[in-house]
């Protein structure tokens, strides 16, 4: 591969990385609040609501993400003849999928808080809101950080699945160039990019965990 060709490839790869980052951050921004909402509904005392949410979580976690991506893209576009932006369909599928995983992490964290701490809040006259914001939330956050970090790292890698719909994100670019050049080098370079990306994610989370390490429970 000549250096001019390689330079052009790197530029394309950077563009692809932009798309990858876009999918990553938008999915994260959408799925975390959605996950909180799903957690609240999942813990609802209304049995019908909680059953529907459980079914949703089971489906999202029980089928391949790539299948969900195709589904949310093809059903509205090809079957219902709706004009939906490809990116919108992708983000819809990604957010719904990740919200299901996040919701289960949030739920396990919430249920792991000792009942006695909430009771202490009650006995001392804290309102429900005060108990949630000044006792439950900080403790849940600390508890779920490691598993949340793991899920975010998976999300970085899952962005590559979007290539199946022909989106020119980092993996698709590398794959195209590899095919054209008949050389594995572009894939290796893309792999290094993903690796560095996740190293940054890991480091960020370990810094956050450190900030929460001044106490244990």
């Amino acid at each position, binding site marked *: 591969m000549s250096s001019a060709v390689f330079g052009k490839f790197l530029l394309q790869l950077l563009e692809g990385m932009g798309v990858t980052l876009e999918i990553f951050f938008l999915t994260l921004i959408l799925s975390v609040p959605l996950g909180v909402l799903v957690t609240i509904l999942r813990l609802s005392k209304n049995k019908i609501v909680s059953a529907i949410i459980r079914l949703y979580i089971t489906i999202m976690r029980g089928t391949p993400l790539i299948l969900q991506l195709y589904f949310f893209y093809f059903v509205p576009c090809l079957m219902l003849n709706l004009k939906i932006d490809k990116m919108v369909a992708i983000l819809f599928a990604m957010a719904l999928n990740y919200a299901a995983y996040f919701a289960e992490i949030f739920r396990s964290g919430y249920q792991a808080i000792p009942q006695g701490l909430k009771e202490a809040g009650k006995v*001392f*006259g804290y309102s429900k809101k005060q108990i949630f914001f000044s006792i439950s939330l900080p403790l849940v956050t600390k508890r779920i950080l490691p598993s949340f970090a793991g899920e975010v790292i998976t999300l970085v890698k899952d962005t590559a699945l979007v290539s199946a719909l022909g989106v020119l994100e980092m993996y698709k670019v590398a794959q195209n160039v590899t095919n054209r050049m008949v050389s594995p080098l572009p894939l290796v370079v893309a792999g290094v990019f993903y690796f560095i990306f996740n190293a940054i994610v890991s480091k960020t989370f370990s810094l956050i965990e450190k900030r929460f390490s001044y*106490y244990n429970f």
Partner: protein
Amino acid sequence: MSNILEIRNVTKIYPDMPRPALENVSLSLEKGQVLSIIGPSGSGKSTLMRCCTQLEKCTSGEIEICGIPLGKSKEDDRKALLKTSLVFQNFNLFPHFTVKRNITEAQVKVLKRSKEEASRIADELLKRIGLYDKKDTYPCYLSGGQAQRVSIARSLAVSPEIMFFDEPTSALDPELTGEVLKIIKDLALAKMTMVIITHEMRFAHDVSDKVVFLENGHVLVEGKSDEVLGEALTNERVRKFISSLG
């Protein structure tokens, strides 16, 4: 003299339990008195305490705190709640707050005291329990005895009319129970109204005005400390229970 605590014919039934946790329990306590509740596990001691501190609602019967009936209106429940406080068996200190903030938080957030006043009260209490030097420590770095002393200070800080203690030394190593019992004894001398669930019979005898023996949700024996636990101990069931504690 008016009673601070009045329990009349209280019954508590949990839906999935074969028998009532409490059945027709009646008790009363005057200001400045100490009541100890003893009895085997599953006898309903904690349930009774949880009903008084509004962690549970009793199925029937009445509880009054300082003449305020529980379960009638939200305003009354709130008023009564602010007159009670509870010391838990396993402390339940807020792990993400320092020792001092554990003591100031409810004063500021619930009683709306100024930060300065809450801080002054916390410092005083910390000196009283001998843990002023631990004020900036987090609860996970305290021994069980220290944690329970802080938890007592947290309860005192909200100026309760009546304090409930749910087996305050049961989670502690034997060497650490003394420091906690001493603080409770000092409170008794200072005429704090208290209800204490305990398995420490000598302590219960020394500190209490009244002792109640609960079994299977019923009050089996009730009387002055000396009558129930003293030399004249007459009830065969109580005698058996005490000797089983070793």
